[in-house]
């Protein structure tokens, strides 16, 4: 088994050995469930859209909570030294951590499939947007997680790591709200950089390569920066 997978397996075990995973998943499920079912019962409308719409905001709090200790804690407790003196490449450590946090995010998202099943049992489910929405959630979640891993590589303090991850994702989210105040020439670029715009596109059920490329490059760049930051201890 590749060292990256060994690391992610260990990390997943840590998540479920500690209250973190349970708290995050429970809070997440309660929040999204509340949103979905109030809409269902009060407005008599079975719709996944409100759930999808809140996710860019919800991820902003939930994902940094998941990722904050991934590397910061290893630095603080000194286990990074043990980990990194094993025969493992720095990027494998970063990818391993990323995959573990992704697994937890996907577990939480998996629980919300109950909403889709509810909608389907009550009426016709619009399959395109539903499938697109979930695919978009996984891609967007990946970008948030990668940013979180990157933030965690900058510091040995989990709280700082949380705040940095939150600030970066909030900044990227804010870009989407800023476009209308910007000159015409900038609007396209800024809108492209915003983290949730592409999710909305995918959520319409139209999978455009540009949107997919955006999330993959966000993941790639963030993980690259995290790897470099891990490597920086060895820079001459």
């Amino acid at each position, binding site marked *: *088994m590749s*060292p990256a997978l*060994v*690391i992610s397996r*260990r990390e997943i*075990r*840590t998540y479920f*050995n*500690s209250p973190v995973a349970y708290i995050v998943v429970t809070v997440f499920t309660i929040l999204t469930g509340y949103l979905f079912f109030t809409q269902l019962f009060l407005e008599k409308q079975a719709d996944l859209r409100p759930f999808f719409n809140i996710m860019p905001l919800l991820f902003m709090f939930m994902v940094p909570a998941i990722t904050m200790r991934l590397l910061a804690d290893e630095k603080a*407790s*000194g*286990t*990074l*030294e*043990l980990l*990194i*003196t*094993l*025969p*493992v*490449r720095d990027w494998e450590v970063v990818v391993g951590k990323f995959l573990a946090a992704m697994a937890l995010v996907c577990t939480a998202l998996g629980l919300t499939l109950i909403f889709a099943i509810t909608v389907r049992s009550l009426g016709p489910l619009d399959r395109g947007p539903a499938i697109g929405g979930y695919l978009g959630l996984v891609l967007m979640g990946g970008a948030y997680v990668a940013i979180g891993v990157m933030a965690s590589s900058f510091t040995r303090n989990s709280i700082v790591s949380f705040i940095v991850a939150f600030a970066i994702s909030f900044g990227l989210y804010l870009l989407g709200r800023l476009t209308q105040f910007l000159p015409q020439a900038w609007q396209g670029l800024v809108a492209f950089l915003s983290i949730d715009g592409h999710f909305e596109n995918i959520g319409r059920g139209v999978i455009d390569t540009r949107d997919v490329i955006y999330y993959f490059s966000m993941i790639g760049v963030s993980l690259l920066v995290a790897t470099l930051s891990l490597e920086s*201890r*060895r*820079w*001459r």
Partner: protein
Amino acid sequence: MSDVMIEVDGLTKDYGSTRAVDQVSFQVRKGEVLGFLGPNGAGKSTTMKILTCFLSPTEGRAKVAGFDVFDQSLEVRRRIGYLPEDTPIYRDMTVVEFLEFAADMRGMDPASSPGRIKEIGVRCGLADVAGKLVGELSKGYRQRVGLAQAMLHDPDILILDEPTSGLDPNQIVEIRSLIKEIGREKTVILSTHILPEVQATCSRILIISGGKLVADGTPEALRARERGGRYRVVVESNGVAKEAIRDRLAGLAGVARCEILAAEEGAHAFALDAAAANDLRKPIFRAAVDNRWTLLELLRESASLEDVFRNLTTGDPTIEPSVEKGKS
């Protein structure tokens, strides 16, 4: 030269403006247990961190098992076992889980690794705590888990940063004999500031102080080289020239060096350095009798490794490092 397992040449490491390791050079051969001795903050751990590829040197090179620690770090890391200082181990894993993790990370054969984990666990005295969480273990047990992890893949080179810290006396004896046993066929570097430890386990000692290598040799050689074989002799002058007496003393078998010291009126004082571990008391006494000198004083300045260590690491660093090469 094929049995040189570790080759360090002009190693220097700066942390910002502080120089933690300064032009350190040494070699370690197969079958040596090298004790890395020095006060806290002397640069022992930093050197070890460089050898294990956790940090890179500011200047100089280090080769482990023939591979450069910077350019071929993965190859180096495959061949070493490392116990970091303070034994950082994931606290939320059980002992067995942690060793399994280490085995998987090293790509050990999943068919044989459980057997190996059991074997090394027994050898390190972990059988009773195999299912316990690392976080619940005492320092001594955690140390053993770290050792087990370092030896798990039967590496050719073991690098142990303070392997016996936090252990009780019985455990220390056990771990020392374990290290000695391993040292017969492998190469071991261990750091410590406990002197009896190196005397008990190491075949060779490096003393490092202020980032500089100040001594390199076997425990015996170091003791002898310092004041271990130093004698102070005072004889009544009786009109004999001190040079004559000096030449006589210097001519005795087993004397490496004889110097004239300042002495009181009517007496001559000399300092003799013994070659190797010769006992000079008898020859000096015989010489005095044969030459009819009146021996006023004969003192063997008994030195322990403690003295050597204290001399080398506290006084002014006048003693040149015995390895003086690889200047770039």
